[in-house]
């Protein structure tokens, strides 16, 4: 127990006017001693990725003998809930390096949760380190011109299809070959019509593409309709622009025609809307012929449905001849406030987020590399079709209100699923929530090159 705690104890004892307070000292939970400089604390991955991370860390300690890395899995109750890290930082127990979903990078930077790493780059002579990284990955970690971390892995969204179901419905699978380019949305729905089945009571028993399921976010479709969410000149977010409305309208129309409650009753039988295990999915169960999913899904397919005969192609486009499109997410290594920002910390970030780390981590977890020089790695050959899509890809806008913005869009999406609101009014409500919050951060400009395609 440190001296500070003892004085607190005294204060309490007095305040409480209870002798029992004296017993508190023994109950103070873990005591936080200072960690030695060569012992780094990492908040890393969790679950079955831990062994893969351990391989990366083993590689790091082999290259940097004398440095010890203590890796901790951090429970995050729900997505986008920053409670753990806020608690740790405020409690003076912050990790040195944090494996963070980089989508919220700009937001956490804006609220002062992260340390910029520009000084580390300069101090240790690593200028130019970002050149090899995917631009959108770096941009997601950039806020007001400063860099806050290194992107570790990424993914793309694609249209997966169940070959058996389609073949049984008499569909020629050649049409779905990626070398023929993307299909139109209309055509995918036509093919879907061929596989759709209902039982005597009118319940769906088999469907084609349920466009809002899995990664079929309204946001995903809106990239296809050409939505741009942020306008630099006006420093404004626009969720009510025509392309955004059009994307959500597509979902609303489809839902109206297919019957919202019938579709939900069908999909949610195999895929609970929340708390679904990764093995619980209508596509994995062989009940839907198509789904929009991330490249990482090949991992789950292999694990939970090894016999499922599947293929994947580009996301369907609005009209024939449109350019393919997709978007990417992924994780990063960052230094939260309270990180000691030493050479060792920087070395760990560079190793984990750089070539050596990704060479180990990407093949094992089926995530795509963020380093262009790794695109042709032999160990990543099976992911090559996805890697090739990265040049069409972009990330979600790195804005300081990113989780609020995303939540608002997900809620509009949720309204489309149940048909409770029109796209226009739902998006207006979302705009009313997010717009004013964004204004508080103005003036703000997007990182250079955001939204432009190409590597």
């Amino acid at each position, binding site marked *: 127990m440190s001296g500070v705690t003892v004085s607190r104890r005294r204060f309490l004892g007095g305040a409480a006017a209870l002798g029992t307070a004296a017993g508190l000292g023994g109950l103070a*939970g873990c005591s936080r001693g200072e960690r030695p400089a060569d012992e780094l604390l990492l908040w890393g991955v969790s679950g079955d990725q831990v062994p893969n991370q351990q391989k990366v860390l083993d590689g790091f300690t082999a290259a940097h003998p004398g440095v010890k890395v203590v890796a901790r899995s951090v429970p995050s109750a729900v997505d986008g809930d920053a409670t753990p890290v806020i608690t740790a930082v405020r409690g003076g127990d912050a990790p040195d390096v944090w494996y963070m979903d980089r989508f919220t990078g700009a937001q956490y930077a804006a609220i002062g949760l992260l340390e910029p790493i520009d000084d580390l780059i300069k101090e240790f002579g690593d200028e130019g380190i970002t050149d090899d990284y995917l631009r959108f990955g770096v941009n997601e970690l950039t806020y007001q011109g400063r860099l806050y971390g290194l992107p570790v892995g990424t993914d793309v969204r694609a249209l997966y299809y169940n070959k058996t179901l389609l073949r049984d419905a008499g569909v020629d699978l050649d049409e779905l070959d990626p070398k023929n380019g993307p299909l139109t949305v209309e055509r995918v729905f036509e093919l879907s019509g061929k596989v759709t089945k209902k039982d005597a009571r009118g319940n769906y028993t088999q469907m084609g593409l349920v466009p809002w399921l899995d990664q079929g976010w309204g946001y995903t479709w809106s990239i296809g309709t050409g939505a741009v969410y942020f306008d630099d000149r006006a420093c404004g977010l626009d969720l009510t622009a025509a392309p955004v409305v059009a994307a959500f309208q597509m979902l609303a129309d489809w839902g109206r025609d297919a019957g919202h409650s019938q579709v939900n009753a069908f999909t949610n039988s195999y895929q609970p809307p929340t708390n679904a295990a990764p093995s619980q999915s209508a596509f994995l169960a062989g009940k839907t012929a198509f789904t929009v999913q991330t490249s990482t899904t090949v991992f789950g397919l292999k694990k939970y449905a090894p016999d499922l005969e599947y293929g994947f192609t580009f996301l369907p486009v609005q009209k024939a001849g449109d350019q393919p499109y997709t978007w990417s997410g992924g994780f990063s290594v960052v230094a939260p406030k309270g990180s000691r920002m030493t050479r060792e910390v920087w070395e760990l970030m560079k190793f984990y987020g750089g070539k050596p780390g990704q060479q180990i981590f990407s093949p094992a977890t089926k995530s795509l590399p963020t380093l262009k020089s790794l695109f042709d790695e032999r160990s990543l050959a099976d992911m090559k079709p996805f890697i090739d899509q990265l040049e069409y890809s972009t990330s979600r806008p790195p804005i300081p209100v990113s989780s609020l913005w995303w939540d608002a869009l997900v809620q509009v999406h949720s309204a489309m699923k149940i048909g409770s609101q029109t796209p226009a009014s739902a998006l207006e409500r979302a705009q009313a929530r997010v717009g004013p919050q964004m204004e508080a951060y103005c003036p703000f400009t997007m990182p250079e090159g955001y939204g432009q395609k190409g590597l």
Partner: protein
Amino acid sequence: MTAVLDPRATAGPEPAPSGRSRLRPSRSTGRAPDGSTYGGWSAVLVRVVMIALCLLFLLPLYWMVASSLKTNEEMATYPPSWWPAVPQLGNYTDAVSTFPFWTMFANSVIITVASVVFAVVSNFLVAYGFACVEWPGRDKLFYVVLATLFLPFPVTLIPMFDLFANLGWVNTYLPLIVPHLFASAFYTFLLRQFLLQVPKDMLDAARVDGAGEWRIAWRLVFPSALPALTAVAIFSAVAAWNDFLGPLVYLQDTKVQTLSVGLQYFRSTQTEDLQYNQLMAASVLVVIPLVVLFFVFQRYFLRGISLGGFK
């Protein structure tokens, strides 16, 4: 708002005589609320209805236990089976080894025991002050106690978080147990109702004999209030054991985390391969201590709150 929950009111069907053994309500008849007894068909009917109600209430518990014994494949079969084909006791050993179950169990025990001890002691003292010592302004102040009964917890969430963060108490047990040192409206209210039945004559006699209040409180009143204290102990044990938001906000380090959040942690660490059967097994293990506690103290417990009355 509080006059109805009257600080002056006493409860209990009869003036309580002195001594622990006689602090017992006149309910030896064990009658139904309306004092009647049922016979013949209506007795059967009432039993059938009650058994049905009990089964309905126990269904989720049953499902939890049944699920905890299934294989993961059987969990995913539709329609679900009522009882596992082959009960998988291994789920339990797997569950406790997949996440730091025993560490979290120990944390839960420490936090719960400390909370209970502190709650019992502090609420007893405060209730004694409100029930057994007569002082000017006492009842007015008790209205304030009752008013705080209705204070919404969220109001305190952020300020307390900031306070405890500034004190450096985050990721320690302190934010979850220290507040129990300072009594709480609900338990003070329960205990006070009970203590009001302690005969004044007995207290006065002790005072005339020269006993100090402190001594009277601990030697005379505390032992006779044990049933009500048991009720407070069990209520606060359940509240501490099942508390979700508190540990969620204050404890992020698995070394200090409790089981209630541990279950959520278990789920989040298994994102790629969630074993629901093990999750259910872990849930069963979380519930068992409370169920045991309830059965062991059931008799005391019910007497404690019954005697307190609600007036």
